[in-house]
């Protein structure tokens, strides 16, 4: 692959534990991290690495991030798992003994499927699909992405026949949004005033009725009758499948805390990303979620010994002239500064998360195809793979 990548490989501390060890007995790998740090590429590289070792892997991302298709060199991915063929993956340069199945969850479609599966009968299902709140809003908003994602994970884990699932989480307000989504939906059904909305004897009528409880009267006044009716209908309809939701929320919760689940935190060495990654890590630990490894992407590297820039410039003048020599030396000066800045960032991550295995992935220079990039990152994370016999 890239010579730059190999040339810098020796610079890493020898005591680094590879991701392979962390993932050896895991069934579920959740990639978390802030935006723009190469989370999607890392997730894809992890899936490739696991499949190289012979596992059957589901690689899952969530719309609206369409990055996964790009990272895999595909024009499109859908809600249905798609097997990546070995011909397609040839440029990655890693032989897979297992399989990678990639999919992009469309939140709206996934939610539809979930309702279809959980609704007790066709009438209940049609009621949900006809509901305004459901139609207008369920596919478009924050919480739905996270909720559908983990509901789907549960299914993939239970019924998919995969050895491992790698999830590329959506950019979230915080690391735990996707964990909390099911509880948030569930708690609606546990609040007495809201349960009243759903009372069996015609919740719509009850909302409009003057005889409703004072809390309802207040809600009616604050929210408006039409909207409250729609909301009541929405939850009433979804609530028809309530035991299914409950069971799912519990199962997902158990899955997240299963010893077979691990979170991998992806970061870059830049100041903002480091700050956010540290706060992600704290949040995961507070929630008792297993954070197993840290990947630091896009690291600029230069040898520890700084070059003598004046000497470089002077040596180049005869061949390049004054202007170009100055630019070349300025280019190296910037690069050394960036490398130094990145080392500081990595140092901060190590200082706080030093107990985690940390893999540094060097910035890959130049125009590199998506799949070559993927191969380079996978190699960096897993080492040179064992070739298939």
């Amino acid at each position, binding site marked *: 692959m890239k010579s730059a990548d190999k040339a810098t490989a020796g610079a890493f501390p020898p005591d680094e534990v590879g991701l392979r060890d962390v993932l050896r007995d895991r069934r579920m790998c959740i990639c978390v991290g802030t935006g723009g740090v190469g989370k999607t590429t890392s997730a894809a590289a992890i899936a490739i690495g696991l499949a190289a070792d012979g596992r059957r892997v589901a690689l899952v991302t969530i719309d609206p991030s*369409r990055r996964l298709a790009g990272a895999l060199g595909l024009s499109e991915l859908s809600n249905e798992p798609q097997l990546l063929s070995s011909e397609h993956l040839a440029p990655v340069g890693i032989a897979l003994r297992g399989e990678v199945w990639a999919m992009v969850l469309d939140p709206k479609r996934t939610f539809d499927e979930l309702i279809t599966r959980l609704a007790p009968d066709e009438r209940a299902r049609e009621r949900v699909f006809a509901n305004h709140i459901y139609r207008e809003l369920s596919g478009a908003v924050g919480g739905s992405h996270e909720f559908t994602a983990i509901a789907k994970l549960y299914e993939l884990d239970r019924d998919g026949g995969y050895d491992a699932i790698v999830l590329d989480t959506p950019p979230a*307000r915080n690391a735990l949004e996707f964990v909390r989504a099911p509880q948030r939906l569930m708690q609606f059904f546990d609040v007495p005033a809201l349960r009243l909305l759903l009372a069996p004897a015609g919740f719509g009528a009850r909302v409009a009725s003057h005889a409703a409880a004072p809390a309802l009267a207040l809600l009616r006044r604050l929210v408006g009758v039409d909207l409250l009716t729609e909301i009541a209908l929405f939850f009433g309809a979804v609530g028809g499948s309530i035991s299914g939701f409950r069971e799912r929320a519990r199962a997902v919760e158990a899955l997240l805390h299963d010893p077979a689940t691990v979170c991998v935190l992806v970061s870059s060495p830049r100041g903002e990303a480091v700050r956010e990654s540290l706060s992600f890590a704290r949040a995961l630990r507070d929630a008792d979620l297993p954070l197993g490894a840290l990947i630091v992407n896009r690291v600029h590297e230069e040898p520890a010994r700084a070059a003598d820039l004046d000497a*470089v410039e002077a040596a180049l003048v005869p061949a390049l002239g004054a202007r170009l020599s100055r630019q070349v030396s300025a280019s190296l000066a910037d690069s050394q500064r960036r490398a130094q*800045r990145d080392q500081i960032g990595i140092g901060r991550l190590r200082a706080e998360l030093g107990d985690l295995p940390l893999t540094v992935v060097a910035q890959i220079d130049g125009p590199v195809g998506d799949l070559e990039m993927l191969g380079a990152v996978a190699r960096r994370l897993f080492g040179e793979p064992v070739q298939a016999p």
Partner: protein
Amino acid sequence: MEDRTTAPPAPGTTPRAGLALEQRLVFVLGKGGVGRTTMAAALGLLYAHRGARTVIAELSGRGELLSAFGRPPTDPASPAPNDEIEVIERLYAVQIEPDRALAEYLHEQLPLRVLADVFGATRTLGFLAAATPGLAELLSAGKIWELAQPERIIPGARPYERVIVDAPASGHSIALLAAPQAFARTARTGPIARQAARISEALLDRTQTALLAVATPEEAAVSELLELQEALRRELGRELDTVLVNAMPPARFEDGDARVLEDALAGGAALSEDVRRALARAIADDRELRAARTQVERLAGALPGTPLIELALSRGGEFGAAELQTLAQGLGEAL
């Protein structure tokens, strides 16, 4: 700082650069990691320097904005959500939380005599808002709208001349901008319907609200920005007003330099290791610059008539006040 406005306005159209300076409300949109928060902060600084009472509203809940102005986000003394904090003269920062926005909405809607019920209602409505798809987004949009009112609805609150929104990452931004319209349609009658319609109207009006998107000159960021534009058009019938291309690599090399550099590297067996390193770095930087220009051209080609403003790559070092000043100055020259 090097700024070049690369996209000339399409023939026969009025240049729209500078439009972002006229609207009271400016949304700063874009993919994660492209410098959205930084741009929102720099824009706020620019407006404040020009004398406008300005607030930057952060929706990501990360407190990044405060740390950009030297306040640690984890500081126990850091403000509660929805508190408007003066970070420098005339410039305020606020973190928007839907729960707090809801509480404010209730206080505004209810007369004092039912205030005793408010806590119960807030709790109930809090659950309702958390569970009902889109309601949290509507509440956030409502709070932004309130900040931008010439006469504030919060008793005693002073109005702002500029409101800059550090919006969430692309997909969530669409949800935020689209929620008022969706609720106006769904609710039809009642206070939320009325309020949602008012908010929606303000957000869709190009004279009141500017949509500014940030991208880095990289394939993925540019693709996501174009998808964002597509979604805005589809969901809201709106165009982006301005695009900021952040982190443009310095234009060090000219056409033909690449060849000279490659020849020098290939021909110089006697070159010192440092010199070889420098040449290899320069060749890589030149390639990166050309790749960046290709991406800018791709943006300009896909968004004819939308002003593109390029801002230089930071030269390293920790992001801080000096950096923000430089960026604000760069924006000021371009806008």
